């Protein structure tokens, strides 16, 4: 039996990319294995851990719960696309400054989630920051430094905007 394959065109991190995939191909697998962007990680394949979070037209989505074909024609940002002009983004800088990662496996999902969050809410309260990261699992850090990093990223973003 041969599966029907579909041609998809995605704009990933500002670059037009094409792939031919079966209908059941997950966006996470397409990014990782068809396009070679392995920075997006898969931690559970059922949408709970958030490690696979990417930005689809700017909004965080679980790429393990998204079929690649449904992303046809859309814009995607992955962790590889967060750095700007060759430098780390404020969120990336904040994560390393505040030791908000250990093994780093869940980190790309947090980085994408927090990037979208701070774009919409550049000066979050403690409560809002907690809520923003509360859909992603991390088994290493205990989250304390991730929360610190969200606030630090907001500061860095504000400094950059000045």
């Amino acid at each position, binding site marked *: *039996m*041969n*599966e029907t394959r579909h041609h998809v065109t995605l704009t990933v991190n500002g670059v037009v990319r094409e792939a031919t995939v*079966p209908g*059941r*191909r997950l966006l996470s697998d397409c990014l*990782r*294995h068809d396009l*070679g*962007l*392995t*920075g*997006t*990680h*898969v*931690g*559970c*394949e*059922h949408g*709970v*851990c958030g*490690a696979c979070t990417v930005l689809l037209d700017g909004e965080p989505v679980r790429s393990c719960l998204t079929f690649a074909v449904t992303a046809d024609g859309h814009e995607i940002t*992955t*962790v*590889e696309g*967060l*750095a700007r002009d060759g430098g*780390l983004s404020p969120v*990336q800088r904040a*994560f*390393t*400054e505040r*030791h908000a*990662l*250990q*093994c*780093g*496996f*869940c*980190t*790309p999902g947090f*980085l994408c989630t927090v990037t979208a969050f701070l774009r919409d809410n550049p000066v979050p309260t403690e409560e809002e920051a*907690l*809520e923003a*990261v*509360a*859909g*992603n*699992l*991390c*088994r*290493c*850090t*205990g*989250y*304390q*430094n*991730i*929360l610190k990093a969200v606030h630090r990223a907001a500061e860095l973003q504000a400094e950059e905007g000045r």
Partner: protein
Amino acid sequence: MTTKLFGEPVRRREDDRLITGRGRYLDDLGEGALAAAFVRSPHAHARILDIDVSDAIDVEGLVAIYTWEDLPGALAEPLPLLIPHPALTHGRTAYPLAREIVRHVGEPVVMVVARDRYLAEDACALIRVDYEILKPVVGIEEAVRGVHLVHEDVPGNVGAHLVQEVAGPGGVTAREAIDAAPHTLEFRLDIERSACTPLEGKGVYARWDADDESLRVYSSTQTSTSVRMAIAAKLGLPLPKVEVIAPDVGGGFGVKIVHPWPEEVLVPWAARLLGREVKWTEDRREHFVSSSHERGQVQHVRAGFDDEGRVLGLDVEILHDHGAYTPYGIIVPIITSTQLLGPYKVGAYRVEFSSIYTNTVQVTPYRGAGRPQGVYCMERTMDRIAAHLGRDRTEVRAANFIQPDEFPYDQGLTFQDGRPLIYDSGDYPEALRLLKELIGWDSFPEERARAAAEGRRIGIGVGCYVEGTGVGPYEGGHVQVTSDGRVHVSTGLTSQGQGHETVFAQIAATELGVPIEKVSVVTGDTRRFGYAVGTFASRAAVMSGNAIALACRKVREKALRIAAEALEADPRDLEITDGMVHVAGVPSASIPLATVAVLSNPLRYAFDEEARRATQFAASGSDDRPPVAEGEEPGLEGRDYYSPIRSTFAAGMHAAIVETDPDTAEIRILRYAVVHDCGRLINPMIVEGQIHGGVAQGVGGALYEKMAYDEHGQLLNASFMDFLMPYATEVPHIETAHLETPSPLNPLGIKGAGEAGVIPVSAVIASAVEDAEGITITRMPISPSDLYALRQDR
């Protein structure tokens, strides 16, 4: 930049690649490799009658299907029992693929190799396995009844039985001491299973080089050197023809120290047989049902004590559920039974454990490795004694503490490494003082009264532990200074997020007097360092940290010797600062370490500027001496090993304030305080991070996580939907204070820190909930519905 980096919160050197998506985890490697997938048993206990693959062979992209019948030689034998012990009289391990009988849901039965994982799983779904279902043994009580057996030849389902006894003053036994004590208590405690659940599961990727007849294997492991030896033995390959590399590993917490996992021998075997690259990446459900669990125990406690709460005799019987197999021996119950005593000296102690088979996933160490259960037992006992005597819980603990002038303190037991359990150093009264100050222990009654006035119910809890860390037998370090002035450090043990690239570079930079930017660190790559034990038991910093420091000292000594000759100075007058060897106090009389590296090798082709510059120092050498003197080696490098006489003992104390909802029985942690002593800190930022993560796992184990097996041995919550790992909203802010009691046992004075955070959390939360509710807590974890039921029973 200063080169004194030991003790500084240096930003992690591994971060840049990990935050930009350039990490290389197992499944990021081997694009285009064939994919393996497994048919796993859906039954907890069954006999395999038939395996029918006829429907699967038509699947597009299918390459191979293997069952136990296909496995040759040593591969067809049971997997190794890694840590035998005389008390483990009935150790049993699994076959890489099930032979006749399956003993837990998730046991691998058939391996499928196909063009990609989707197709491999298609084929798995079409393979029909007929089973004769056997009676499953689930739960410790069911197992010890011994009516049904997990292994036909293991009577009573008892794999191991061990008694350790330490007599009290005058040779009095624990039971005698208890019988003679002014007060006695007897009770039962239960603690449930949880699991490591790293965000990245296991994975193996193998490539066979037919021209070279060699094998390269990448595994998401905590021990690449031992995986290598296992593969060589199981596949009958010469050791030098096998190399194993742990790439970036997405968390371990113990589960990845087990080796070889079935897949770690099957995937390389298939790669060699097929002459194709093969990769297997574990998915989340597979991880739940086929990797290890830990923690499940039933404990029967008898304690005798005096009016001050001093324990005169303690008698503990432990039933330890080790699941279907014992590849890791009885390390977990040994640790529980020996580390149970914590910072206390008890009059006399008797501990007996039985390690029991059940038709569930095997039990091997998970961060803490038996200590959380031991500490839970001892700390529940302390709270019981305090309640019985009407004394403050911290007073009772203090009455039992080993005092600072009593080190080294011999507990009289045999530890996990087979060596005497002798604590090297510590200051427990000071740790408790700090903790009480940090949490506000003495002012808590007023806080409780204020809360009560608002209709709120709060409680405070405390827990203390001692953790044997840095177990041997050894680790090694290799340090090479190349002619560009760069320092290449390698050690055989692996990394799963602990920041080894950073802390080992801090050590090397400090020892050698070079900027940290010049130092690179490689771990877990057998091409670079072949001898190692692995990363577990909070041992990496102690073991490899000291080995690297010793290797650096060798390099430094050689560098000073060569530089002294070049500078015509006495080596004792030389120092290394910022990569320059110079006469102390005379910066002008100097030579770069890079140039020393060139001078260390008599073969000096002028490949680079350093080599050309070195000619000005080139000694002509004596005609009657060989260019490489006897006992010398070319190059500026050193290798050394650190092998401790015994473990070093870290300690800590935690306290928590919880609030319980009077209506819903929801348990919320309001405050969490940690006092931690792991000797000298290499990088305080990293140590704090380790503590935070440990406490978070402890909170999971205390309030949310358990393996919900039904009576058929089905794991009902084998997904992140149902197994409740804490999110940010469930983990409290953690307040920490450090005490630094150096270890006298190793050159750097350090102790391990990796597991510490998780160890006392269940004990602390039980203590706090009990205090809030006035209900004796004997089972952990405790959910709102558990607490609600306890309230109904009151």
